[in-house]
């Protein structure tokens, strides 16, 4: 975490252009620049500035947005729920469906079902999420009208209560599925290879020899297969979040991705740097959660 803060600080300070000139205009006099520098602490030595920055961030202060004129923390916090909803749904979808399809692909590995699933997984993994979003949008939303094209709610018919929830869910389907495809394909392939390897192991032969029903045997094997799968899902949190950003842009989902795009267009550096920090924290947390779940699944791993 400390490393990330320092990295963030370095990017701010390596950025071209003098902030005093940016704030005071190009033709101010030297005394005014000096005033601005001392006003914002830019005349202090770098290590001291770094300390101030770190202490501000630790107090939840990420600075003020150039465009919104409000605290960056507030601006970002407003967008987090929408992104969490999208990412959470997609994660559940990709994990559940990925494991299920992986078992299926391992079970039918020599038959057409297995081969089809395998090819589909390869394609799904290689397809960029934003492109899949564009195609899904064209085919399913614009083409058939089955799904709403963009946004999170229908602005023409504002709803309340349960109808509002249904409206949001209806808008959620396409972006969540599109976002899930990449991870789903990867999870499926990992489960498939893992299961095929595990089903050849001695403990599985022993279980079969005892006469355990096949479903129970697969459950035994699956528990061991899930460990590496979990690690991969956890370690891809960063990729997953960047996919979410791109999918949000395609579907105009009002989350962090849209904020990122609008901040990019308006060069709103405080918001951009704040978002980088938040995303990094998200990735670190995802890794932590993975490690903890790992310990729960595998009794051999214990943390002090």
């Amino acid at each position, binding site marked *: 975490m400390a490393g990330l803060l320092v990295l963030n600080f370095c*990017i701010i300070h390596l950025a071209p252009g003098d902030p005093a000139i940016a704030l005071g205009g190009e033709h101010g006099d030297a005394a005014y620049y000096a005033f601005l520098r001392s006003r914002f602490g830019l005349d202090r030595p770098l290590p001291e500035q770094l300390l101030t920055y770190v202490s501000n961030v630790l107090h939840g202060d990420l600075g003020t947005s150039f465009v919104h004129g409000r605290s960056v923390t507030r601006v970002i916090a407003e967008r987090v729920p929408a992104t969490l909803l999208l990412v959470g749904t997609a994660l559940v979808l990709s994990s559940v469906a990925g494991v299920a399809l992986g078992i299926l692909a391992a079970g039918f590995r020599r038959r057409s079902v297995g081969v089809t699933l395998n090819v589909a997984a390869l394609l799904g993994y290689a397809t960029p999420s934003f492109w899949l979003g*564009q195609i899904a949008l064209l085919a399913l939303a614009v083409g058939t009208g089955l799904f709403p094209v963009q946004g999170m709610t229908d602005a023409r018919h504002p709803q309340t209560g349960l109808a509002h929830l249904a409206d949001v869910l209806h808008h959620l389907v396409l972006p969540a599925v599109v976002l899930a495809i990449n991870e789903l394909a990867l999870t499926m392939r990992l489960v498939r290879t893992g299961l095929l390897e595990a089903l050849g192991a001695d403990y599985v032969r022993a279980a079969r020899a005892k006469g355990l029903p096949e479903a129970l045997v697969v459950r035994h094997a699956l528990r061991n297969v899930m460990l590496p799968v979990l690690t991969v899902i956890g370690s891809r949190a960063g*990729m997953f979040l*960047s996919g979410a950003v791109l999918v949000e842009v395609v579907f105009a989902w009002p989350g962090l991705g849209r904020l*990122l795009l609008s901040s*990019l267009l308006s*060069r709103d550096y405080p918001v951009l740097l704040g978002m*980088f920090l938040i995303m990094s924290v998200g*990735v670190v947390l995802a890794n932590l959660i993975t490690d903890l779940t790992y310990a729960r699944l595998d009794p051999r791993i214990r943390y002090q």
Partner: protein
Amino acid sequence: MPDSTRAFVISNELPTLGLRALESRSGLWRILRTGAGRVGIAITGGLLAVALLAGRIAPAGPFTSVGLPLTAPTLAHPMGTDDLGRDVLSGVVHGTRTSILLAILVSLLSGALGIAVGSTAAWQGRRVDDALMRFTEFVQIVPRFFLAVIVVAVFGPGLDRLVLLLGLTSWPWIARVARAEVLSLKQQEFVEAARSLGAGQARVLLREVLPNALPPVVVVLSLTAASVILIEAGLSFLGLGDPDVVSLGYLANNAQRFLRVAWWMAAFPGAAIALAVLGLNLLGDGLNEGLNPRAGR
């Protein structure tokens, strides 16, 4: 060195050289024997050819207006034209060249860094290993895509900084694989033999250990190249690409505004990205199956 020892060294080296050549030949043959490897080599090779011959295939260049704007695919323009009447096929061909060039440069840089860090950590052991691996974990946890977004936003777009940035952040996985390989090879008898013949540390590491550690690293490199293509596409899709260089993501970004009127502007560049990533992944699969005897079916 007395003559008798020299004779021994030479006679000892000759068979290994011969064996190595045989091994590498059979390695390639084994990759070609796997279905994934064949398709992967075909796709990657095809795209490489397109990248090399981009000027011949589409001499008009991706930024030249060649017809009416937003025309659907025809024989003259098999992928249609964009909002400014530019040929989409030409954009895809030149965009592929950009993506592949970027992928190669980043792979070279991150490969060199990863191998250097990983093998140094494993070879030196103890404190050096600890320090280097902590650092590797730190770099690994930095979200590459968002870092790239910030850097491009702050410093402006450009292929050069993208190569540097992605190269400097993509090596941790390679380093970990290289470290694991060197750690296990370090204990092998042939390394011991080279040492007892009086070979120096550097010579043993560079001539004996590293060549044998390379196969798994190459697998990871092909997957890194695939992820680099995806990251560049994502960045350009957000409008962060170099506006003077056409890339596949740049085309997809442009297409987003005309999605409802010109499907071809989105469909073909995206398909090219998917094809490139698929080809590299299959190549990785084939390499893995061909070079790693344990990963048999």
